[in-house]
């Protein structure tokens, strides 16, 4: 348990408010530096985990590239993350979707969230 003053500070530092949850398919707009130039890269995939809290919060996005699973971990508070766009709301019963790693093809589909307030 950290000191109340530190907790107050951490409210300033982060976390940014996020509106995606586990199971959502998202586009992450990530600024990357290539030599001198800076450009925005989009990483599209399913959010399979969030980890940490306060300024130290992360989320993991998984996608398939040429049949190979690729996972990328993003710090939620990083200013390099421009925005996260939600493409599809997924409905899950787990907090961590690590089981998707063992599945291929049709088995990796998630049911779409249709409940009021949560659906897109």
């Amino acid at each position: 348990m950290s000191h109340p003053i530190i907790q107050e500070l951490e409210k300033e530092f982060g976390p940014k408010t996020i509106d995606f949850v586990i199971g959502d398919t998202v586009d992450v707009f990530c600024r990357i530096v290539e030599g001198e130039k800076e450009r925005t890269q989009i990483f599209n995939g399913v959010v399979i985990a969030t980890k940490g809290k306060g300024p130290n919060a992360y989320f993991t996005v998984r996608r398939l590239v040429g049949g190979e699973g690729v996972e990328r971990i993003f710090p939620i508070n990083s200013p390099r993350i421009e925005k996260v766009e939600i493409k599809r709301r997924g409905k899950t019963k787990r907090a961590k979707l690590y089981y998707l790693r063992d599945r291929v093809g049709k088995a990796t589909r998630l049911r779409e969230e249709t409940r009021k307030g949560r659906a897109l």
Partner: protein
Amino acid sequence: MWRGILGKKLGMTQFFTEDGKRVGVTVIEAGPCPVLQVKNQERDGYDAYQLGFDPKKEKNSTKAIIGHCKKTENAPMRFIREIRVYEAQEMNEGDVITLAGWEDVTEVQVTSKSKGKGFAGVMKRYNFHGLRATHGVKSNHRHGGSIGSLTPTRTVLGTEMPGQMGDAIVTQKGLKVAKIIPEKNLILIEGSVPGGKGAHVIIRPAQPYVATKK
């Protein structure tokens, strides 16, 4: 210009800079520190300011401390330390020192009592490699090996051996200041500083005396 302030380590946290770098910082609550006593060349043989920090209740204090702090109409202080200066300054007893005016400070040194590690062996205390895990080494895996050669027929002074580690006054130099928030009496220092949470610390700008020392 002399500077120095007393504080209390609150713990660590982290934040991102604008260009996306993460900075781990130690949060220290520094000041307000009243000047309890001014030592001068004539009377004491040296120039220094005695600062107090962290007031406590009178029932928890000795009469000596209560009396000493009362001279400047202050509550008894938990942490009282002198900050040495090499030229007399315009600072009087009863003045209060805060982080206001520290905006130009980029590097500091922090003095505090380090966490006690107890009676530690040479591997933990001096980063010795110890002996082998196999090849016939028997129950001497964390030993230091030889402590000297035959010729001086004594152990050379300063040979590193097991003993008390930590729980000593340590000054950490060259620490960068990440942020100063004077209105909250907070200073954020990049990296770690000696001592545990709640440890009392003395903060001085890096090399505070060089310009004035004779």
